[in-house]
């Protein structure tokens, strides 16, 4: 049956799709490299090639060199955070089968943020490692809570119930955060700048502790690509095809929680990346999660790098935090997506 393939046969068609995806992969990787270079080279003080080369080699003798030396960890942080958020968004959209889901809608970011703010307000928390653990704990608790509430009643954790529980939890956590913060003038400034979201202050010391969490989240998410493909067919069909629905969902969600928690701890909540990036990637490579997930990670990194660079350029000589830029860039793109694509009912 599958001997010589006629040009119009399904396999030939699939091969064409695969070539197109490889081509896009090449384009995206090149774009990522270019965005990294921009991120190192452009800023409130622009530097030349020689200075970039010197800074990368660790020289700090001229001002240009030290600027580069500061921008490199910042670039690394933007790549990691963008990739984590893009990937987490794609996974959450798959897990909840909800095209509008993102780390925000499942209450994960709000949970992480609330935990960090509570930690600052009540325990005088100021160290990054503490932020990290608290944020992941908060993200995990929020996810568990949302999942538990979402699975109450008939039919288990349906996408609609998950989304509703997530939205409600998000609002509750944000209100609590504000309520705790309002009377506390002493921490308000620190919380506010953290809440807007930024990669500007990134150092290797801040990045290193979150690497294990990001790595674990990445592995879990990428490993669930095939299960996510099955979950997209509905729980019944997925189970009929041999997926362990609850386990697959929990594993993927845990991966996304680790990614979001770690990212939120360092950069504060950054919105829209997790929502917009998977949609863009679906236009490029289709709905197969084995392609969609890596693409979402790469594209998320590109988006966050560009947003960060843009934030340095538009407000010269000062800078605009990356969280504000993603909101400005993301919102119109998001509206465009909703208008372009028929968003399926919940």
């Amino acid at each position, binding site marked *: *049956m599958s001997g010589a393939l006629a040009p119009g046969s399904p396999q030939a068609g699939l091969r064409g799709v695969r070539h197109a995806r490889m081509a896009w992969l090449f384009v995206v990787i090149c774009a990522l490299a270019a965005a990294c270079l921009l991120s190192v080279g452009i800023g409130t003080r622009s530097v030349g090639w020689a200075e970039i080369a010197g800074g990368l080699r660790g020289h700090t003798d001229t001002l240009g060199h030290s600027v580069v030396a500061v921008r490199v960890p910042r670039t690394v942080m933007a790549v990691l955070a963008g990739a984590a958020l893009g990937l987490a968004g794609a996974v959450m959209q798959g897990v909840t089968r909800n095209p509008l889901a993102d780390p925000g809608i499942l209450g994960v970011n709000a949970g992480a943020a609330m935990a960090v703010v509570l930690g600052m307000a009540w325990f005088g928390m100021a160290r990054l490692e503490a932020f990290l653990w608290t944020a992941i704990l908060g993200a995990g608790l929020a996810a568990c809570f949302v999942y538990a509430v979402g699975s109450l009643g008939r039919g288990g954790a349906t996408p609609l119930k998950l989304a509703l529980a997530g939205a409600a939890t998000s609002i509750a956590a944000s209100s609590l955060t504000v309520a705790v913060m309002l009377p506390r003038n002493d921490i308000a400034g620190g919380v506010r700048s953290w809440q807007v979201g930024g990669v500007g202050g990134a150092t290797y010391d801040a990045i290193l502790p979150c690497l294990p969490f990001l790595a674990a989240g990445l592995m879990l998410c990428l490993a669930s690509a095939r299960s996510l493909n099955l979950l997209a067919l*509905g729980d019944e069909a997925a189970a009929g*095809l041999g997926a362990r629905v609850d386990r697959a969902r929990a594993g993927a969600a845990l991966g996304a929680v680790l990614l979001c928690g770690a990212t939120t701890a360092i950069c504060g909540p950054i919105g829209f990346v997790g929502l917009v990036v998977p949609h863009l990637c679906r236009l490029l490579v289709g709905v197969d999660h084995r392609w969609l997930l890596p693409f979402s990670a790469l594209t998320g990194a590109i988006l966050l790098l560009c947003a960060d660079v843009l934030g340095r350029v538009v407000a010269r000589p000062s800078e605009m935090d990356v969280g504000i830029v993603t909101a400005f860039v993301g919102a119109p793109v998001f509206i465009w997506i909703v208008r372009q694509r028929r968003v399926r009912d919940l």
Partner: protein
Amino acid sequence: MTAPTLQALGLRAGYGATPILKDLTLALPPGGISAIVGANACGKSTLLRCLSRLLRPERGQVVLDGRSVRDMPTRDLARRLGLLPQAPIAPDGITVADLVSHGRHPHQGLLSRWTRADDAAVADALAATRTAELAERAVDELSGGQRQRVWIAMALAQETDILLLDEPTTFLDIAHQVEVLDLLVDLNRGRGTTVVMVLHDLNLAARYADHLIALRDGQIRAAGTPAEVLTEEIVQQVFGLSCVVIEDPTSGRPMMLPRGRHRMTQAHRAPGRDPEPDGTPP
């Protein structure tokens, strides 16, 4: 290969306090074609969900070849038993070829690659359901009948010994209904697949199934050959519908003709209940 035996023993299952299936025991003829019939909401889909382990029964068990399906690894079960749900969901924008390829999932290991056998199974399934020319179209752009055939193709690509289909002929025009049922018979004869389907058309069920199971209110009212099950009395009990059963001249199987309140000839009108042919009340 000996045909698999699938049995349900004393099943009690539901979604909440009140059970939908009440102490239901049945054995599906190995290597045969069975059709489950019954009124809306009598528990047909619930029975299929129990048989395919999607729903855990409160009491009783489902036994495949002498082993409780509870104890079988998920992937092993999915290689032996396939299910086409009543209302499957196609992800936005997925192509027909990609969807049908999902049927191969239980045959692939964690790391094993797509093989020629997978290619062949997908191509066979597309050809058998005449959906090969749709392979690159998006599923959500197809007509209801085309989509139904694509889902059947996915179930075929799974290449299981047992295939459970929940209303596989919904959305299909009469020609495609017959085509799908013929296809299932081909599958049954050619590969020895045990086919179990929920059908609403009693006449097609009686014609295509070797074994009919009439469900009423979560219990089996009758099970056996079409001649044993498709009788005026049982149809009356299961559907609350008065009918006439005659022999289908094209297949020799029984065939039912419903009696309604209108349009009945003198011989089939219920005196004192039905209006006269000209519409005057009884």
